[in-house]
């Protein structure tokens, strides 16, 4: 590396030092100390207490379900996108990205208004003499919110991976006598694994750590691990416990990132 390049990277190093390394260090410091400043592991082991463990299990379950749903919805769409002409697929991608230009909180709040007992959807259903929808303040509403908000993060890496597959490879498979199903499972799916892994990472991690979706669509009745951490920081002002639990959550995220680093060598996810 030349000295000029080194000099150019200074602002970025400064930025990441100040806003990534320092805050992370503070989280670790708080997580490993108690109110008196003495070293303790209690904030970490607190994850094993009944309430916290339950919240973590529920978070894992809901984010897993959301990730699977996102994958099942996104994969066929990404395949279609990869096959249509360039001009048309740009338009389709735009449709999926467009909502992301709006604030994430507003979109989630909109779902609350839509799903409420006297909400828009139920008004329409009542008008049509159909039974009303009762999913607000249930885990189902939270999954809906997760899928809605994170779906684009699944589609784009999948699309990138699928678009990169050389059509000749698929043609060759057909020439050699493989049917569509066979080609899909033996050629397309394995070749798109980097995209799948990036997509899973990009949906699973935000879903696992969310507290906004669960508090807006769960009515405060469903406590996810993100809500517990939020509670510790904003309501009970126990920053130590909040930091300790965040560190536990980071372990899950790290595992996920290591997995994606192993499989996603081409950096499909970085296209976003």
């Amino acid at each position, binding site marked *: 590396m030349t000295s000029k390049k080194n000099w150019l990277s200074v602002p970025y190093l400064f930025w990441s030092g100040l806003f990534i390394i320092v805050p992370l260090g503070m989280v670790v410091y708080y997580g490993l100390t108690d109110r008196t400043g003495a070293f303790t592991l209690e904030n970490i082991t607190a994850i094993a207490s009944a*309430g916290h463990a339950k919240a973590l299990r529920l978070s894992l379950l809901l984010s897993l379900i959301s990730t699977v749903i996102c994958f099942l919805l996104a994969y066929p769409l990404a395949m279609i996108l990869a096959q249509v002409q360039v001009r048309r697929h740009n338009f389709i991608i735009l449709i999926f990205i467009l909502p992301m230009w709006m604030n994430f909180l507003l979109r989630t709040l909109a779902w609350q208004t839509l799903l409420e007992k006297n909400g828009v959807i139920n008004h329409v259903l009542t008008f049509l003499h159909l039974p009303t929808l009762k999913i607000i303040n249930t885990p189902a509403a939270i999954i809906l919110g997760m899928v809605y908000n994170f779906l684009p993060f699944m589609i784009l890496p999948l699309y990138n991976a699928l678009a990169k597959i050389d059509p000749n490879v698929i043609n060759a498979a057909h020439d050699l006598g493989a049917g569509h199903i066979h080609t899909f499972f033996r050629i397309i799916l394995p070749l798109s694994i980097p995209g799948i892994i990036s997509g899973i990472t990009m949906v699973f991690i935000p879903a696992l750590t969310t507290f906004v979706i669960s508090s807006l669509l769960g009515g405060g009745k469903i406590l996810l691990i993100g809500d517990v951490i939020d509670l510790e920081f904003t309501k009970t002002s126990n920053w130590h416990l909040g930091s300790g639990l965040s560190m536990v959550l980071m372990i899950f995220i790290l595992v996920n990132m290591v997995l994606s680093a192993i499989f996603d060598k081409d950096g499909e996810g970085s296209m976003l």
Partner: protein
Amino acid sequence: MRKNKKSFGKITFALAVSFTAVSLCGCASSDKGVNGQVIVYNWGEYIDPETIRMFEEETGIKVIYDEFETNESMYPKVESGAVAYDIACPSDYMISRMIENGMLSEINYNNMPNAKENIGEQYYEQSCGFDPENKYAIPYCWGTVGILYNKTMVDEPITRWEQLWDKKYADNILMQDSVRDAFMVAEKRNGDSMNTLDLTELTAAKNLLIEQKPLVQAYVVDQVRDKMIGGEAAIGVIYSGEAIYTQKENPDLVYVIPEEGTNIWIDAWVILKNAPNKENAEKFIDFMCRADIALMNFDYITYSTPNVAARELIEDESIKNSEIAFPDLSQYENLETYVYLGEDGDSLYNELWKEVKAH
């Protein structure tokens, strides 16, 4: 004890964080007024912004205004001293915690004629619960916590906390999403003190709340207003200050102070120990105690004012004598004010509350 008017709990919080970041950067570089500045830390949407502008104009003191969402989020920020606030406006129990930890500076009433004159004697007496000699706190707003119900959606008038456990109102009940308020409801229903640290009483309260959970539509903070106005739920636990506003929007709503008793709270101005602009802080608080200013704030935030002179100025008789804004407290039994429970007490409540929420 006040809750945000906007129905965006988390959003306001997120915005508050970003605004704080911005305003903190602002502190260093912004121009001071000709007579210096004063840094105020108050609840979100808890003041008529016009009054701040008037204060700046009249005194030449620049106001740097910052907002918090809960007492609990305010405390560590003030304690850490990351921002040298002059004034804060916490609730009763949090003030006693701050007094206990030596974080407040004594008030010099000689510099605050309005505070001395205009705030009703009874409110100073009430404040003695958390500030025994009225040395530190000047009442700003007060109120009760009660039940707001939609009379078109219930079979009989709601008068007791007990009715929040009635199965026929399943999915029609809104509870407060805050540990002390939620436990207060259960404790009062059991006839216990809302400041109890007795493990048997607390366990009983926790079990009641768990029993109630399936009936609760949602645990909310600010949204109780909008949801009640919109007829989304039949019964909600609400702060009296919000009740006046909701009734204006939806005349079917009725506010009651439950028979079992409830929480009566005071939010008060305090000057912090290390306030860099103590004199300006006194001027600011005294300005807020001026009758016309207190009236403007009352009109804006609709929380009961302890400012007797301001109440006299209210033109609308129905509000001036409103049972919600200015209830005759002598006819209610079992009204209690929260007291600070100590760190261990707080953790105990928080643990139990988490068990309820995670159940």
